[in-house]
């Protein structure tokens, strides 16, 4: 299997996973989910580090370093802010019926 095809397969399968996993989230979780997903794309930090390492000219390096700063803010800030939101949800008693519904809604 060629490399391009492997990446294509992974891409397509990931689309399905992304669609399916989120398709039944309850309204209450829209914001934390958006924020959590936002934090996840902060892994572009990995890409920023890779290009910073490769950088040869000052221009490249400068841009790469800026990218690292931005990506770090995205990633670290994103996870922290999501956690803060979710803290609010935690440990609150929920009625049986409702929590069962949400349980199955999130599988």
């Amino acid at each position, binding site marked *: 299997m060629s490399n391009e095809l492997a990446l294509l397969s992974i*891409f397509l399968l*990931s689309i399905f996973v*992304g*669609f399916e996993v*989120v398709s039944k*989230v309850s309204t*209450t*979780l829209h*914001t*934390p*989910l*958006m*924020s*959590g*997903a*936002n*934090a*996840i*794309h*902060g*892994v*572009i930090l*990995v*890409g*920023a*580090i890779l*290009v*910073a*390492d*490769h*950088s*040869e000219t000052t221009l*490249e*390096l400068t841009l*790469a370093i*800026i*990218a*690292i*700063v*931005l*990506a*770090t*803010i995205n990633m*670290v*800030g*994103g*996870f*922290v*802010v999501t*956690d803060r939101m979710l803290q*609010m*949800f*935690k440990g*609150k*008693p929920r*009625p049986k019926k*409702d929590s069962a519904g949400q*349980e199955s809604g*999130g*599988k």
Partner: protein
Amino acid sequence: MSQNLYDLIGLLAGICFILALKGLSSPKSARRGNIIGAIGATIATVIVFFYANDGKALNHLPLILGAIAFGVLVGVPAARKVQMTQMPQLVALFNGVGGGAAALVAIVEYLKLGDSATVAEVVATVFTVIVGCVSFSGSIITFLKLQELMTTRPVIFPFGRQLIALTLLAVLATGGWVISSGGTAPLLINGALSLLFGILFVLPVGGADVPIVISLLNAFTGLTVAASGYVLQTTLLIIAGTLVGASGTILTRLMAEAMGRSLFGTLFGAFTAKATAATGAAESRPVKSGSPDDVAILLNYAQRVVIVPGFGLAVAQAQHTVRELADLLTAKGVDVAYGIHPVAGRMPGHMNVLLAEANVPYEQLVEMEEVNPTFPQTDVVLVVGANDVVNPAAKTTPGCPIYGMPILEVDKAGNVIFLKRSMRPGFAGIENELLYEPKTTLLFGDAKDSLTKVVSALKAL
């Protein structure tokens, strides 16, 4: 570190992200999900240091570490200190910088690859630059709107649609130029035009639709990360970016549905809908305003009271006081429930979060679909700092910015009490006819102050 081992660990991190999203879609596991995501991101970041330079210390290592440290120093306090009410704009900002980072990475990689880049790589680069820049500038505008550093109303400019279309055309043309003939300058021009397009594209979006746009830009940024993953041959970035892109798309649709909007209408509605609503100097019409004592009496003799919280509750930080009032009424034998609109406040679930903070029992929080049929049997609705979510214009005024959004039908109740500070409209910037109805009583003032006064008055009864 071998490519294989690196890819394997990357795959592991990718699975962390899947589990994170899975977790985040269920209230019970949401926090754990977020932590799993953070672990995945940490793993991914740490291993790249062992892999990038064939196992040797990275070039520019101090600079890189410094940049990360700086990012942490900026990001963590911002995330820690921001108030609950300002989280949405912070998420918008974080999303924007992520898009910016992706665009920068693509540009740097393009500079480095030079003429050795394959067509596919150039296409992916151009895609990343365009979408990353749009996401960056668009997110900044949404930030400004939400932070109320600029108007939350749709900004409509003459020939707006034509201008936007033209800019988009220019973006695509310069993109094609880069792909066909290459070169750094065209790429930068392309990026600049994309930044402009991002601004123009978000300006006409009405305030109420801003969260939907944030979510959309978030999905876009995910796709740029996936494209970068292709250029950098890093599977992890492909998986992570695609996941965010796909789940973000669905989430955007779900959010639009919850607000009763079509996605298309959200994005292009401002230019097509005639701004029929929100006009007329109706502010001079008479309203019935009451004292805290009047309100206390109304509440005291009610059988059933529904409290409808909105953004003003968050602003006034009145969640504890409102709970006190509810407890007091319950003790007096009044049947009290909270009617929660899905988009009350400034983020979905805002009211749940806020009231949970004040330890309001979960059973008292009743969702829109369930509470709506009960309003005809409700004696008093106490609207605490809400406006758009109870505005009948959503049903009666086609063309107004919130038209079609399902609302809490408080106008069906016996009495409606509004706690707000002025006659100013809510987020969507439109007049609320309900304020002028005979059954409505207004208690002006900060929600927390007003509630405190009502509580004392009630105790005195």
